[in-house]
């Protein structure tokens, strides 16, 4: 691994931090979302279809934020 500079190390750190911190929030959000969906399912098992569909849609919104962090990390590693 010779030939690596401090700049390369900082780049790796930046990428790791961006996805690491960026995934924490959506992780909490997805946990809350899925938990509430399970609660709703427990109260009203007949509404399984709509609950599932809306949960997946809402999960996509939460997940998109993690994906932004991932894209930033990918850009730091491969482009910048």
């Amino acid at each position, binding site marked *: 691994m010779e030939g690596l500079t401090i700049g390369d190390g900082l780049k790796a750190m930046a990428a790791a931090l961006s996805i690491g911190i960026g995934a924490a929030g959506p992780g909490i959000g997805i946990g809350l979302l899925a938990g509430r969906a399970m609660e709703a399912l427990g109260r009203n098992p007949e509404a399984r279809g709509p609950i599932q569909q809306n949960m997946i*849609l809402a999960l996509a919104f939460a997940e998109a934020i993690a*994906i932004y962090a991932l894209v930033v990390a990918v850009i730091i590693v491969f482009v910048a």
Partner: protein
Amino acid sequence: MGGLISNPKILAVAIIGLAALLISLAGGALGSAFGGGFLGGPIPLIQLPAEKVVALGPYDLMNTTVMFWAAGLVLLLIAWRATRRMKEVPSGLQNLVEVIVEFFDTTADNVAGGAKHAGRRFLPLVLIIFLIVLLSNWLGILPGVGTVGRIETVGEWVEHHSHAYEEEIHEQYPDLTDAEVKKKAVKKTVEKYAAQQFVVFTGDRALGIIPLGRGEDAKVQLQDVVDIGAGDEHIKKDLEHSAVKRAPANADDPGKHSGLVGKRAGLLVPFFRGASTDLNTTLAIAIVAMVTVQIWGISALGLGHYSGKFIILNKGPINAFVGFLEAFGEIARTISFTFRLFGNMFAGEILLIVMAFLLPLIGIIPFMGLELFVGLIQAFIFAMLTLVFGVMASVSHGGDEEHAGAH
């Protein structure tokens, strides 16, 4: 549990599966630390932009474009096969397509307010987005996609990258001829990228094969192929040859890499690559979706009423700002669409590459299943969000709170 183990068929399958997993574990990059690694190849170069397959005149045909066209062709083929002999009681492919269309028909009606055929106007675009995104996602994980391609030799790579310096050198030394500028650019590129890694291929010069079993050892640096400090003619000859000149230094075992000398070095440029792993594809679909959403809104509410959602001038500064936020939200949704699909699919591709490197042949099968699932979910989300945004755009201006959360 005891019943499961005593069943000889299940036991045999379990043993074979476990053995295959152990072989792939020992053969991959993890096993190479313990003397195994007989299946592991060098980890491929991952790059963000799509690669050029062939130049069609002034137009560079990219490998993701090829895959998008392939997805379109497959879709045409499916549509033709499904509707060729239509039956009153559907079976086979016709049945499958009817299930998909019916599902989206009822979903569109439900989202658009519940009345029958209320969602009909949204259906064509929503359905085509779902189908084309799904097919291009799934075609991207077929075997051979991303792994079969042309070898870009070191010479071609340097030529390709030296164009970036030509202009700079031309400005610096304006009295040089084009040929001299080119030579200087090549020299500068070689010096700049001396540590750039290339894969050493096996097989004859026509058919390059990624070497299995040597793992990361099958990589050399540019300085092992070209004599950096030598004269221009010498560098040119080395680049034309694009073969490994000297084995990379290895302190532990000096003879370890001597087998690489004389082999061709370069990079693999795949012929095919999953269409959704290119930002241009996802941006194009997102723009089509969001522009159509605006058209739906205008056609449902009329131009004046619809633009009243964004330009609110007679209700004070706060409402004007809310209108501005609404307009900005439309742009943010386009970007969000783009990056959601691209990020998911590109991350999936990297996951598969890394897993193929860690657990070759067998160990990546579960991850392929995961990618099938992610591809389906992402296609569904893209289509559903288009539908939801379309419905939101075509209902009259009511409670702002209702459509504030969607980004």
